[in-house]
């Protein structure tokens, strides 16, 4: 038997962030056996791993670099996303410390699962091959199914995991079918080759390809939680442990968006007349459903789940616009959103009590006088989510809207702006409760220094990105 020569395109350096994280994830698993009940070491190792992984994303300096038979790429988009993922995972881990102590989650596997999930996200954002994207999505999803259900004794957490799992696997079926059809009609799983095949008219059957594209929209639509595939979001967000909810709302969603963006703009740009219309419908529906859903909510986590659905609607506009501003605005929005979400959830965790209690809006009554600074930060985050200047949320929204406007999507922008006006209604509801209602019960806030640190960092970033967004935008624009 003749020996198999390793292909030249194997480039382990471009894979550095994944490798570093894999090593650390396994190290965490092993260390956990010796660490005992104190998880400080495990946390420290995890954070170090994430940091090193983020740094190693810079290993390649002449971008873009394609490797592994063009199925893996290091370009500016993926480097930016790797930073975002490592940052958001680190923040999620920091948020978890206090929460896990309170809820009695003492499993070191928790941290390694977050690291594994981050590996999946990095793969998702850097892959240019349908098989890799599929695997990336599955790594992310499987870790999230487990993380959602990690409070094993809690029925809500179980239910959240079960719902997420069954629906996620169901949606994976659609996604996979779509990928299979795209492969079959274009003859390749590589995004660039698919684009070439479509460009050269080298397609077996156009209708079948379009069917595949619609199935891809369904599958990705589920993963980014856009309407009408969003129904799992509120239930899962509510039931999952709060730090996991924050984690889910940022990293995996951004990763799914990265893949969605790559698949639709890099491999299917010639079919944009089809998917653009489909995505416009989805985006509008997502905004409206998210906002309407949020209005009547009384549980803060559920409210934020619906609000995150509406944000997905805005972000989809960037994919639809697909010009140079759109890419930058997508990245910027994701980053700004990450800080807002971690800030809000940090405060939610501090307000929470053992057993996922104290999550109703009424529980926030009177926070304004008891902890004015905390309430002020919460107000800043909520107003930023609503898109009020001078916070990051405004700049992010403004960017996406102007990107869409540049493509002449006036009607879409009008709907989006109107929706963001409606969204103030429910963000204000929380603010009103904090400042203008008598407290129903004694307010007891667990001011753990690490959680406070996360909130402070998020607050500074939210304001910083709102007032001096330029450096980040310059970075995102490359």
């Amino acid at each position, binding site marked *: *038997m003749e020996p*198999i*020569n*390793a*292909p030249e395109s*194997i480039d382990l350096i471009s*894979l550095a962030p994944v490798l570093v994280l*894999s090593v650390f994830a*396994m190290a965490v*698993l092993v260390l956990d056996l010796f660490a005992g009940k104190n998880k400080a070491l495990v946390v420290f190792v995890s954070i170090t791993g994430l940091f090193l992984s983020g740094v190693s994303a810079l290993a390649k300096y002449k971008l873009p670099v394609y490797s*592994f*038979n063009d*199925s*893996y790429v290091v370009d500016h988009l993926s480097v930016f996303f790797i930073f975002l993922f490592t940052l958001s995972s680190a923040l999620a881990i920091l948020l978890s410390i206090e929460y896990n102590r309170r809820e009695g989650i*003492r*499993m070191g*596997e*928790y941290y*390694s*699962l977050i690291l*594994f*999930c981050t*590996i*999946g996200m990095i*793969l998702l954002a850097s892959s240019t*091959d349908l*098989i*890799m994207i599929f*695997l*990336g999505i*599955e*790594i992310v999803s*499987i*870790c999230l*199914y*487990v993380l959602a*259900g*990690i409070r*094993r*004794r809690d029925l809500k957490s179980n239910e959240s*995991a079960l719902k997420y799992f069954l629906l996620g696997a169901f949606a994976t079926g659609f996604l996979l079918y779509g990928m299979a059809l795209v492969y079959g009609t274009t003859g390749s799983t590589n995004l660039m080759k698919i684009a070439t095949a479509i460009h050269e008219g080298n397609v*077996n*059957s156009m*209708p*079948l390809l379009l*069917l595949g594209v619609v199935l891809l929209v369904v599958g990705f639509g589920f993963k980014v939680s856009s309407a009408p595939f969003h129904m799992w979001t509120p239930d899962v967000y509510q039931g999952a442990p709060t730090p996991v909810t924050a984690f889910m709302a940022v990293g995996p969603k951004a990763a799914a968006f990265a893949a969605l963006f790559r698949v639709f703009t890099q491999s299917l740009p010639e079919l944009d007349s089809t998917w653009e219309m489909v995505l416009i419908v989805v985006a509008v529906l997502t905004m409206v459903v998210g906002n309407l859903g949020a209005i009547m909510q009384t549980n803060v986590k559920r409210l934020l789940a619906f609000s995150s659905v509406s944000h997905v609607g805005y972000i989809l506009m960037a994919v639809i616009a697909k010009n140079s501003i759109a890419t930058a605005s997508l990245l910027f929005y994701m980053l700004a959103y990450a800080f807002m979400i971690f800030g809000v959830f940090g405060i939610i965790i501090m307000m929470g009590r053992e057993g996922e209690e104290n999550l109703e809006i009424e529980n926030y009554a009177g926070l304004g006088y008891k902890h004015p600074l905390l309430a002020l930060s919460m107000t800043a985050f909520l107003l930023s989510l609503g898109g009020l200047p001078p916070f990051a949320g405004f700049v992010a929204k403004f960017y996406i809207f102007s990107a869409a406007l540049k493509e002449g999507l006036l009607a879409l922008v009008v709907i989006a702006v109107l929706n963001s006006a409606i969204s103030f209604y429910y963000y204000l509801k929380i603010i009103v409760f904090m400042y203008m209602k008598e407290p129903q019960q004694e307010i007891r806030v667990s001011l753990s220094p690490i959680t406070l640190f996360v909130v402070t960092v998020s607050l500074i970033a939210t304001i910083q990105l709102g007032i001096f967004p330029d450096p980040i935008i310059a970075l995102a624009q490359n």
Partner: protein
Amino acid sequence: MELLTFYPLAGFSILLALGVVINKSPIGSALCLIGMMLGLAGIFAMQQAHFIAILQVVIYAGAIMVLFMFVIMLLNLKGTGAEWRSRERNTLLTVLTAFLALGVLYKIVDIILEIDLDSPAKVADTFGTAAVIGETLFTDFVLPFEVASILLLAAMVGAVVLAKTKLD
């Protein structure tokens, strides 16, 4: 000639798949599923995908379905209780859903039948052998292959975390 083997195999698989959905008891469903998977292995083999056909038997029928059976028995789900049966029965919903599915299927069939099919390329003798698949896996698709190990590791860790009896 091939059609003669294809139709029985396809019919067998579809019937068993329907059996999975219709069967009242989970055990029955699982048995039907195993049968269906064996049928599909035959279909794969027909297309010279011998390696995948064997994997289908080993992984699906051999590993995955065993896990299913194991869990069903562990949870002791008989699924024969009258209460359970009445819960499962919802004729209207079933009929509506079936109609919906048939509609979609019709559309898909429509699309598939529209394809203008050239006669497929003559494939080499080595097509679908373990050697060729292995070579592809370790050259062009070495990254997915390695990433799959991360996936399996993560899944293993996750399953252990959720299912282990002792909570620490």
